[in-house]
């Protein structure tokens, strides 16, 4: 049955591609990373991967099919892992549109730590890129500019991709990670209403689903969220704010305030994130900042950034440089240093083994 459905889908896509405009692109990326102190036994290779991505976009006037997929070859253990980053179809009417399939979406206005971006799961397999995963969902959009509405139905829960050390920790304690049972009632829903005005962009969010990280028992807890965000241009800067209420979490309130300032080739982002833990009656917070600068006609981009947990004083700092030899070939180098807090590892310090230097080369076609 599964094979029949797959064959039918492949045939449908092939037929569509035959009658639509098609664009094809790809990227080959090689990266290698080396651990640095405070990692135990520093200066050893911790990873070397070759990632091949293919991108297909076939589109007509009212339809679109998009596929982003490929494979990762891990040179450390000689394994090959295929992946489908996104694979969705769009149907457009005048104001209403439908997107169904594997897709990514970002909620909120934060760049570093968001209070409202719960729709898609985290991908913690690569903490440097801080990418978000995709969801298998049906999205219905209604565009009544300056208003816009989105409704997501996610029938199948997608958990966060955990870092190997966290998966190992669950295994060590013999805790089995259990996903919610596959049933209609265990689906997730999300909604967003946005207004784009001259005064600024404002949005409301609602979500009912699951936490993307398992709890100490290995089970995923229910998650509800009601939130709002704003991005207001004032003079040279854009002020940003997010606030969210999580009735099923101990940390019931989360909020973010920040700004983005772009001056010529400089971009500065500063954000303050806080959450209120009702059970412990405790306020915790994080402050993050990044500065990026482009030079040599935009070929070289330098960036530094960091995040600090304000209670434990643990955090991470990172810096990097990226140089474009041509439109196709780019090389980058980056360093991440994760440090523990004053009384223990803390939120970020627990990942201190991720401290390292990373080199990457990408070829796009």
């Amino acid at each position, binding site marked *: 049955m599964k094979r029949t459905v797959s064959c039918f889908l492949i045939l449908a896509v092939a037929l569509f591609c035959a009658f639509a405009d098609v664009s094809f692109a790809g*990227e080959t990326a090689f990266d290698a990373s080396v651990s640095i102190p405070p990692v135990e036994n520093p200066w050893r290779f911790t990873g070397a991967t070759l990632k091949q991505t293919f991108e297909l976009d076939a589109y007509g006037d009212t339809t679109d099919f998009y596929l982003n997929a490929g494979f990762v070859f891990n040179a450390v253990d000689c394994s090959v892992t295929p992946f489908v980053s996104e694979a969705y179809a769009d149907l457009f009417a005048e104001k209403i549109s439908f997107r169904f399939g594997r897709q990514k979406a970002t909620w909120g206005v934060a760049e570093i730590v968001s209070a409202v971006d719960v729709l898609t799961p985290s991908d913690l397999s690569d903490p440097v890129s801080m990418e978000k995963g995709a969801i298998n969902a049906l999205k219905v959009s209604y*565009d009544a500019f300056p208003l816009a509405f989105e409704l997501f139905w996610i029938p199948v829960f997608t958990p966060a991709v955990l870092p190997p050390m966290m998966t190992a920790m669950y295994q060590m304690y013999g805790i089995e990670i259990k996903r919610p049972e596959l049933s209609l009632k265990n689906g997730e829903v999300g909604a967003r209403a946005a207004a784009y005005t001259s005064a600024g962009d404002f949005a409301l969010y609602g979500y009912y689903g699951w936490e993307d990280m398992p709890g100490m028992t290995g089970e995923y807890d229910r998650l509800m969220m009601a939130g709002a965000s704003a991005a207001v241009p004032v003079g040279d800067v854009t002020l940003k704010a997010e606030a969210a209420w999580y009735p099923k979490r101990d940390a019931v309130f989360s909020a973010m305030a920040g700004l983005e300032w772009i001056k010529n080739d400089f971009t500065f982002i500063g954000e303050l994130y806080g959450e209120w833990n009702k059970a412990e009656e405790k306020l915790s917070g994080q402050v993050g900042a990044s500065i990026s600068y482009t030079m040599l006609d*935009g070929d070289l981009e330098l960036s530094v950034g960091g995040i600090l947990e304000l209670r434990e004083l643990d955090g991470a700092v990172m810096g990097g440089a990226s140089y474009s030899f*041509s439109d196709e070939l780019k090389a980058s180098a980056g360093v991440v240093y994760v440090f523990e807090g004053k009384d223990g590892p803390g939120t970020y310090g627990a990942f201190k083994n991720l401290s390292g230097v990373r080199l990457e080369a990408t070829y796009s076609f």
Partner: protein
Amino acid sequence: MKSSKIVVVATFILMVATAVAQAADLTGLDIIKKAHEVPEPASSSVTATLVIHSKKGNEKTRQVIMKSKDYGDVTKKVIVFTSPKDVAGVGYLMFDYPEAADGSKQDSDNWLYMPAMKKTKRIAASGTEAEGSFMGTDFTYEDMGERAISKDKYTLLGTENVNGVACYKIKCESIARTEGDPDRVVYIGTDDYMLYRCEFYDRHGELHRVLACSDIEYIDGYACTKVMKMENIQSGTWSQITMSDVIYNTSAIDDNVFTVTALEQGRIR
């Protein structure tokens, strides 16, 4: 026969004399106003090729689709990069507001869609940010919009030929003096009031950038500058925008393309 020739010559002399007299009466501000009044199509769709030339001689080429529509109280523009791969899908939506009767002008509304982040960012339009490089080119975000007449004071310096075209030479001095290039010298065609050249001077009065406009063609009765080259004299770089597939006043430009949702959905082709 002889008398009719005399009449023709006399009429020609009279016309030239009238034109010279009229030109002499025009102030720099009048000419700038006339340049702003050059008829523009209510809507347009253009494919533009951007060539970015580095100091070392390396070239990068970007292709964008640009659509715009004038709604009277606002002009909406959308620009989407189609190549190369590293910028494909990046989109820029801008709402530009006309100058009010008192000379004031509302800041434009700007959004930037970054497909890698699956996110649309609101961008501040006022102040120095507008002078930031437009997608790595020597053009700024402000260059992509229309500068309010009230922001400058104007002095007519005379007339000068630019590539064989007679132009008014006008000095435009920023009143606020907050811009990186507060002074400009613009060359406006005496016949068509089109911009043929613009020199940008920095705060030290040094020549910073030079814009050269060429290949002006008339499409459906509207003037279209098909080639714009911006040269950064100080850095030695230049960028050129070449227009193709120019379509004016077409009903095919749907109002729904000028929205953040359309930008995020990749519907602008």
